C-alpha cells in the first residue's frame, strides 16, 4: 500500500467515524462490552458480549510507563508501531495517558491489564475505555519471551487482541491457553510465545484496523432454489462477524433489501480457523421481489464497528 492512498483512507475513515460514533468514541478505542452491570447506570450496555473487544475510533494510543519499564515499553511500542503502522505516542504525563504501565513485583502473574476508567458514549448507548493500566511483574522467573514480551502482550490486549486468540470456554480451567501458533498473545508460560509480535499478531491487527475483508466473495443462483447463494473466505482471522448487505437491481439502481450479521468465528482449535469458507443463502421469496439480478456486499464486523474493506460479490440472476 502506498502512503498516499493510506492517508486518504485514514482521513476518510476518520470523518466517517466522527459521523458514526460522535466525538466521544473518537477518543479511545476499546469498548466495555463485558457485562451490562458494569455499564454506567445511564446506559443499557448494548455492547454486551463477553470477552470481546470493540476496537475502533481513535487508533492513537498515548502511553506512559514507570522508569524501570521505559526501555521495555519503548521497544514493545516500536515493534507494534513499525509492524502495524498504528500511531503510539509517549504521553507527557501519567494523567494524560491512555495506557499507564506500572511495575509491581508482588503481582501473582507476569502481567495484567485492567480498565481503570470508562466514559459514557451516548451514541452507542455504552461505555468505552477511557483509561487502562498494565501492571508488569519485573523480577523473579521471567516469562517466555522476556518481560518486554509481557508489555507487548498487554499492549496487544489494549489494541484489541484476545488472550491466545481463544474463544470463550475453550480453555482449561485454571490453566493458560496456549495457541499452537506463535503469538505474542500467548501467555508467558506458553512455549511458543515470541519476543515481539508474530506475523499472526501483525496480520490480525492490520485486519482489525485496515484491511480485513471478505475474501473471494462470490454469489451464484440455482434454478431449483430461487435463492442467491453466497460464499466467501473468512479473511478476518476468525473472530469477526461479517455484515452482509443484500442488493436487488430494480432497473435503475441497486436497492438494499436486507442486511444480516453472519458469525464467522471458528475458534482457534479448528485448523482452518482463520481461513474458513463461509456461506449464506438468501431465498428470493423472503423479500417479495421478482426474478432479477441480486448481489451481496459486506465487510468484516468487529462487534458493531464496521472495519476492514467493503467488498461486493458478482451479481447473479435469481429465478
Amino acid at each position, binding site marked *: 500500500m502506498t502512503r498516499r492512498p493510506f492517508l486518504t*483512507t*485514514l482521513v*476518510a475513515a*476518520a470523518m*466517517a467515524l*466522527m459521523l458514526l460514533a460522535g466525538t*466521544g468514541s*473518537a*477518543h479511545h478505542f476499546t469498548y466495555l462490552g*463485558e*457485562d451490562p*452491570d*458494569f455499564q454506567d447506570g445511564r446506559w443499557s450496555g448494548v455492547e454486551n458480549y463477553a*470477552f470481546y473487544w470493540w476496537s475502533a*475510533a*481513535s*487508533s492513537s494510543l498515548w502511553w506512559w510507563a514507570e522508569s524501570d519499564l521505559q526501555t521495555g515499553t519503548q521497544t514493545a511500542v516500536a515493534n507494534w508501531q513499525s509492524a502495524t503502522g498504528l500511531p503510539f*505516542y509517549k504521553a507527557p504525563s501519567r494523567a494524560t495517558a491512555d495506557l499507564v504501565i506500572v511495575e509491581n513485583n508482588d503481582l*501473582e*502473574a*507476569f*502481567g*495484567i491489564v*485492567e*480498565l*481503570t476508567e*470508562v*466514559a*459514557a458514549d451516548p451514541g452507542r448507548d455504552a461505555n468505552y475505555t477511557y483509561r*487502562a493500566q498494565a501492571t508488569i*511483574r519485573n523480577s523473579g*522467573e521471567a*516469562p517466555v519471551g522476556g518481560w518486554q514480551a*509481557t508489555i507487548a*502482550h498487554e499492549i496487544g*490486549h489494549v489494541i484489541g487482541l484476545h*488472550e491466545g486468540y481463544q474463544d470463550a470456554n475453550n480453555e482449561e*480451567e*485454571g*490453566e*493458560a491457553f496456549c495457541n499452537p501458533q506463535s503469538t505474542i498473545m500467548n501467555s*508467558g*508460560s506458553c512455549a511458543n510465545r515470541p519476543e515481539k509480535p508474530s506475523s499472526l499478531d501483525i496480520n490480525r491487527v492490520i485486519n482489525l*484496523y*485496515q484491511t480485513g475483508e471478505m475474501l473471494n466473495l462470490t454469489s451464484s*443462483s440455482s*434454478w*431449483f432454489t430461487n435463492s442467491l447463494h453466497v460464499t466467501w473466505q473468512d479473511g478476518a482471522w476468525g473472530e469477526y462477524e461479517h455484515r452482509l448487505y443484500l442488493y436487488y437491481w430494480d432497473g435503475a439502481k*441497486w436497492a438494499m433489501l436486507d442486511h444480516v450479521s453472519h458469525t464467522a468465528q471458528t475458534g482457534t482449535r479448528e485448523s482452518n480457523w482463520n481461513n474458513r469458507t463461509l456461506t449464506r443463502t438468501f431465498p428470493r421469496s423472503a423479500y417479495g421481489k421478482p426474478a432479477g439480478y441480486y*448481489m451481496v456486499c*459486506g*465487510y468484516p464486523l468487529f462487534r458493531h*464497528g*464496521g*472495519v476492514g*474493506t*467493503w467488498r*461486493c460479490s458478482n451479481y*447473479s440472476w435469481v*429465478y
Partner: protein
Amino acid sequence: MKKVLVSGLTAAGLILTATASLSAPVKAPPAAPAAAPALAASLAPAEKLRLQEQLEGDGRIQALSGPRTLGALVSIGGRKIQLPADAFIAKFVVGIDCMPGGPCPDELPFLILARGQSQVWVGPRTGRIFHERTAPGHDQAFAFLREVTQP
C-alpha cells in the same frame, strides 16, 4: 427411474445456473454500491487534551477501580452486593499473563477486591473465587462475599 429423473433435473439446473447471466432478460446493472465506512483516526495532542477536559467536565467518566470504589455497589454472580466501606475494587482485569503455578482465571473480566492487606480475585459473572490472599488475622476479610460466590 427416480434416480434418472433426479439426475436429469440436476443437469438441467446446472445448465440453467451456468447460463443464467446469458439468458437474463434485463440489462446487467452497473458497478456495485459505494464503500462502507472503515476506521482509524488519531488526535493531535491539543485535540486530545481538549476532548479529555470536555469529557471530564461533562461528568462522563466513571472509575472502575481505585479508592473511588470504596463501598461501591457491585454485581457478582448475578446479585448486587454492597462492599464494606473499607473494601474497594483494586483492579478490573481484562487480560492476564499467567505464571506457571499461579492463579489463572478463565473468566474475564475479573475483579481484584482489596480490603486492608487482603485481596480476592472474583469473577463477576459467575461469582467464582479464583484466588484469595488474606492478611494474618483477617481470615474473614471477604466473608461478606459468601452469599454470592462459589469457591
